[in-house]
């Protein structure tokens, strides 16, 4: 029995069970002339039976898929002939990895026939799920549903049971995202711990020099390796500050225009256009920064008699600021719009002008929400990579001069991990240390933003 045969049987018996259970419930109700009928509607009995058919099958299937590789490995190891084991120095895991390589078609000439046989056996185990397994899980499902079919009586409340299963399903789905986040954090933490085994924590956090070139050979020169993260974080800070000083005023003022001055028609037209800016791929912004803005700034500086690099923090930061404008304008526009009209009327009726109303009533009322929007935009700016790679360079300068080239955390992570890497050198592991630091910073920012938004909700509703 192949997978598709199994699937067809599974689906049709699911349909049948649903129909049968619903029908059984209907007949039960019809059979009762007096006294209590079923406490739930008949279709809930159908659903409940269906659920108890599907759940055992799916969960067994899931567990099977997770543990099958281990089982296959175990079975293959059991099959290893004694003479082969001896030729590999009594190490079955070595044979196992060779067999795995062979099973993926990497057969070198002169491979021992025993190994090829083992690989064939392994492939057989891997790709054929035996019909007995399919029959077994179908049987399991039938056991589950037959129990529920027996339960159909006036004492069994099917709707509540179906709903509690539904709730558990929802809980399961929501934990997937949380578990993934936790998984990401742990994968970062373990690699970062390996990094901090080689480079002291405080040297990383407070070091002033960053040059992650470690020596490959003992006698290599100029590759001592310095892992001080300060220049990188200061570069990130510089670019973020530049980006925010472009996007906050422009975004906020356009939000005020959109929500307070533009007519409804104009707003319906302008807002989507502004939001298109958010849909432009960041690589395209990178082109724009590197090819248009950077050289333009350089030419401008030249005509004033300065000399600046064409790769500069200000080019990258400025373009990033433009990219972030829609975040701030769109979110702030929503926040400003949610300030109740009664406050506007109240202020206007006091003889305040429109701009006084905006400055003294609307903005203060919307401020927490606007701050939340700005903080979300900041974490977006900190995480942005592409524009900086293309327009600000990768030199880790410790500088506050916006016309210098700087680098950011994300850019360094990219440069550290691109190309061939050994995953035990501090150079590569540094990426994870930077990653977890960045994760921590943006996490704190986001938590803070959420807290402010929450405070806002409590206060003005």
């Amino acid at each position, binding site marked *: 029995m192949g997978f598709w045969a199994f699937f067809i049987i599974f689906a049709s018996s699911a349909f049948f069970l649903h129909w049968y259970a619903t029908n059984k419930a209907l007949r039960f109700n019809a059979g009762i002339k007096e006294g209590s009928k079923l406490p739930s509607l008949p279709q809930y009995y159908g659903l409940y039976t269906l659920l108890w058919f599907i759940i055992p099958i799916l969960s067994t299937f899931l567990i099977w898929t997770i543990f099958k590789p281990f089982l296959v490995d175990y079975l293959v190891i059991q099959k290893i002939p004694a003479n082969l084991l001896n030729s590999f120095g009594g190490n079955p895991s070595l044979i196992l990895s060779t067999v795995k390589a062979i099973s993926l078609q990497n057969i070198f000439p002169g491979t021992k026939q025993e190994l090829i046989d083992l690989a064939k056996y392994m492939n057989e185990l891997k790709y054929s799920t035996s019909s007995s397994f399919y029959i077994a899980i179908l049987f399991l499902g039938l056991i589950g549903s037959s129990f529920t079919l027996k339960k159909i009586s006036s004492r069994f409340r099917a709707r509540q049971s179906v709903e509690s299963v539904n709730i558990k399903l929802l809980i399961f789905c929501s934990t997937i995202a949380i578990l993934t986040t936790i998984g990401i954090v742990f994968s970062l933490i373990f690699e970062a711990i390996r990094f901090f085994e080689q480079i002291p924590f405080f040297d990383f956090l407070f070091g002033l020099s960053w040059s992650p070139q470690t020596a490959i050979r003992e006698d290599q020169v100029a590759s001592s390796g310095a892992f001080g993260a300060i220049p990188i974080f200061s570069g990130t800070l510089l670019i973020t500050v530049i980006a925010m000083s472009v996007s906050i005023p422009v975004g906020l003022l356009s939000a005020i225009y959109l929500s307070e001055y533009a*007519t*409804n028609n104009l707003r319906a037209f302008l807002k989507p256009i502004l939001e298109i800016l958010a849909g432009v791929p960041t690589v395209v912004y990178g082109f724009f920064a590197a090819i248009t803005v950077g050289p333009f700034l350089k030419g401008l500086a030249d005509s004033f008699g300065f000399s600046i690099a064409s790769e500069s923090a200000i080019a990258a930061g400025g373009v990033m600021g433009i990219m972030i404008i829609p975040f701030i304008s769109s979110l702030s526009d929503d926040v400003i719009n949610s300030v*109740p009209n*009664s*406050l*506007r*009327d*109240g*202020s*206007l*009726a*006091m*003889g*305040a*002008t429109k701009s*006084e109303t905006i400055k*003294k*009533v609307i903005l*203060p*009322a919307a401020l927490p929400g606007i701050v939340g929007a700005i903080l979300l935009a900041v974490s977006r700016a900190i995480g942005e990579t592409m524009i900086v790679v293309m327009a600000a360079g990768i030199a880790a300068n410790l500088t506050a001069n916006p016309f210098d080239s700087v680098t950011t955390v994300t850019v360094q992570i990219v440069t550290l991990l691109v190309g061939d890497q050994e995953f035990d050198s501090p150079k590569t592991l540094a990426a994870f240390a930077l990653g977890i630091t960045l994760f921590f910073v943006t996490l704190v920012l986001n938590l803070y933003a959420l807290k402010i938004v929450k405070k806002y909700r409590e*206060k*003005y509703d």
Partner: protein
Amino acid sequence: MQKNKIEAKKVSVFYNDKKALNEITLSIPEKKVTSLIGPSGCGKSTFLRCINRMNDTIEGCSMTGRILIDNKDINEKSLDPVLLRARVGMVFQKPNPFPKSIFENVAYGPKIHGLTQSSDELNELVEESLKKAGLFSEIKDRIHEPGTSLSGGQQQRLCIARAISISPEIILMDEPCSALDPIATAKIEELIDELAHNFTIVIVTHSMQQAARVSKQTAFFHMGNLIEVGKTDSIFSNPSEKKTQDYITGKIG
């Protein structure tokens, strides 16, 4: 012979193409309470909002006819609606204190109009306005707490204090008690009586008992038309129009 503060002459209001008010002509006496009654959607609030040109803020709303305050047309081009609204205060249906402290709520108007020179003067003005609104004794210890922390009735009296802080000549009230319980309503009505000594008050109300209690003159609106206007006593005891009679006795509404 009493002086008329507000004269409306053939006032019609349109929301886009829909006519909401039909040629209203109405005189409102100075330093008296005039109440506008009528079923929902009859145009009484729309008329009220014409008097301080709050309808200007609504997109697609236009008005024809003339409204005179002290014999001056308020829709004249040379007249700034911002200055008009400083003379014509308004209290809304739902209490709408700003999300600021009680003090800042009342100080808002004097500050934007530059009515006081020093902070002492401002403090005095705020205190005086709160006293006039009958709120000061209740909240004098927490004048710097947020205005939104007050109860509904207190919030509405705070809004009245805010309105009178800039000494308007006219106060418009748009169903000021509809969100309040009977006790808070009684306090506001008492306050309206008090305020009528100094201000011309126009109040829109759903409650005919309230109109009878607080006002000297009553105007009955129905479907955008002014059906009848007269002394409150005679409107309620002896209406001359059938529709007014029907509304008062609860046959329409």
